[in-house]
């Protein structure tokens, strides 16, 4: 069970603390707002001798992820952190890390993408690499960010998975927001993650291997199929690790978390910190007799489509909240995936999409209450007027 009293930590501090307790072999990183603090704090742990990590300073995020891949293929336990432009500068190597089956763990702070330049929260950066083969886990607050980082190591390194994992927080809202959280003892973390056993090592002279060989028409497809299978395997591992974490430390995790969802008729589906705001809206409307609920998705990749359909099938109307826009004109990335997951249901709930909070635009309890009111109208037989709407944008 959780052992210590509550301490005050920002999301960045919580992630850096988890990294200290994990004590990876190698961290290669480049600073970027609002994730800088994670690796800055970690570099102080290195300088103070609190960890055994080789800290590699590099000239860009592209180099940071390249150094991570090099260290991982050499057989090291590897971590890094980044955000926004940094993540998309890494993009080329993110795909390579997944393809080479490197179980790297990345602390990612969600931030809008340029242009125009902006340093505040939205999910555009993480969504832009959703098909890279990285497992993507969203956090609602500092506690979840901390717990997710520790679980991410186990998930990534599981022999049935061997895929990289990014754990995300919302820029400034979580990364710089001070919260009371419970930390584990160093030994509890070490016992939970266990020693790292590399699947292969470039430095093993007894077993020489080639990493990154050319794969033509005759093999490339098979290797991509293997990665898809690993993503499929990750689903069970994520659930097992989340359950074990709960048994040991009192906080269990699954693919998503429902709030007053079972008997609800209308619900929001969303990712990250907005869940806290939505809970308040749900409580207020429940007090007024509205049968509303919430589904907070934690794991976006792999996408738990069947499980989501099961959890949402009883609803009359759903609003999917996207904190990024695909610019496809057919809805945000979360919306298209959730709507597709519901397609095979014999009776599908009505579903609408709200693009919100881009570039850190605030989202309030009143905003969300307004959406629940609209869902009430739709569930009562009202027409969906516009399937995709931009919430809180000035006309």
């Amino acid at each position, binding site marked *: 069970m959780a052992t210590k009293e509550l301490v005050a930590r920002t999301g960045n501090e919580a992630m850096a603390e988890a990294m200290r307790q994990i004590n990876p072999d190698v961290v290669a990183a480049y600073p970027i707002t609002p994730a800088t603090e994670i690796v800055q704090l970690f570099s102080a742990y290195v300088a103070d001798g609190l960890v055994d990590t080789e800290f590699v300073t590099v000239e860009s995020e592209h180099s940071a992820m390249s150094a991570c891949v090099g260290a991982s293929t050499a057989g090291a336990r590897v971590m890094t952190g980044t955000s926004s432009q940094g993540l998309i500068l890494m993009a080329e190597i993110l795909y390579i890390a997944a*393809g080479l089956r490197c179980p790297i763990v990345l602390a990612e702070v969600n931030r809008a993408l340029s242009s125009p330049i902006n340093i505040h929260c939205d999910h555009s950066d993480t969504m832009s690499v959703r098909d890279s083969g990285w497992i993507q886990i969203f956090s609602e607050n500092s506690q979840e960010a901390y717990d997710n980082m520790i679980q991410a190591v186990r998930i990534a390194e599981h022999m049935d998975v061997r895929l990289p994992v990014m754990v995300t927080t919302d820029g400034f809202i979580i990364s710089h927001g001070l919260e009371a959280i419970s930390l584990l003892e160093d030994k509890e973390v070490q016992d939970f993650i266990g020693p790292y056993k590399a699947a*292969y090592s470039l430095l093993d002279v007894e077993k020489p291997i080639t*990493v990154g060989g050319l794969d033509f028409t005759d093999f490339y497809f098979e*290797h991509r199929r293997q990665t898809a299978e690993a993503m499929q395997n990750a689903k069970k591992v994520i659930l097992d690790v989340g359950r074990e974490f709960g048994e040991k430390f009192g906080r269990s995790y699954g693919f998503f978390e429902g709030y007053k969802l079972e008997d609800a008729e209308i619900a929001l589906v969303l990712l990250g910190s907005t869940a806290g705001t939505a809970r308040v809206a749900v409580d207020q409307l429940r007090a007024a007799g509205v049968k509303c609920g919430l589904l907070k998705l934690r794991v976006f990749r792999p996408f738990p489509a069947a499980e989501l359909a099961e959890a949402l099938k009883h609803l009359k109307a759903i609003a999917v909240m996207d904190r990024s826009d695909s610019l496809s004109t057919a809805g945000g990335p979360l919306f298209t995936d959730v709507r597709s997951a519901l397609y095979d249901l014999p009776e599908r709930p009505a579903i609408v999409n709200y693009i919100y909070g881009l570039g850190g635009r605030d989202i309030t309890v009143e905003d969300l209450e307004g959406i629940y009111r609209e869902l009430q109208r739709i569930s009562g037989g009202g027409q969906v007027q516009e399937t995709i709407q931009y919430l809180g944008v000035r006309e």
Partner: protein
Amino acid sequence: MTKGWKELPEGGLITEAGNAHKYETGDWRNLRPVHNPEKCINCLFCWIYCPDSAIIVKDGKVVGIDYAHCKGCGICARECPDRVKAIEMVDESEFE
């Protein structure tokens, strides 16, 4: 039968040392290097430069070309010293 996705090493790894030899790049070739031992001064420039280790050398002398691996890039012919030019690139169609 080439292995399916369930049997192949994961991550595109090649787990056998030195198996590049099994990959016969010779069928990429359009131009074939033809070595003339009469002109050759055995400087071994061609042997050093060949990217496919396809120049066969015995006792310090060029004795032939490994056509199973020579991909016909022409580097050997280019690097062979101007005053001898002991390698000529000949169109493969000439040999059919």
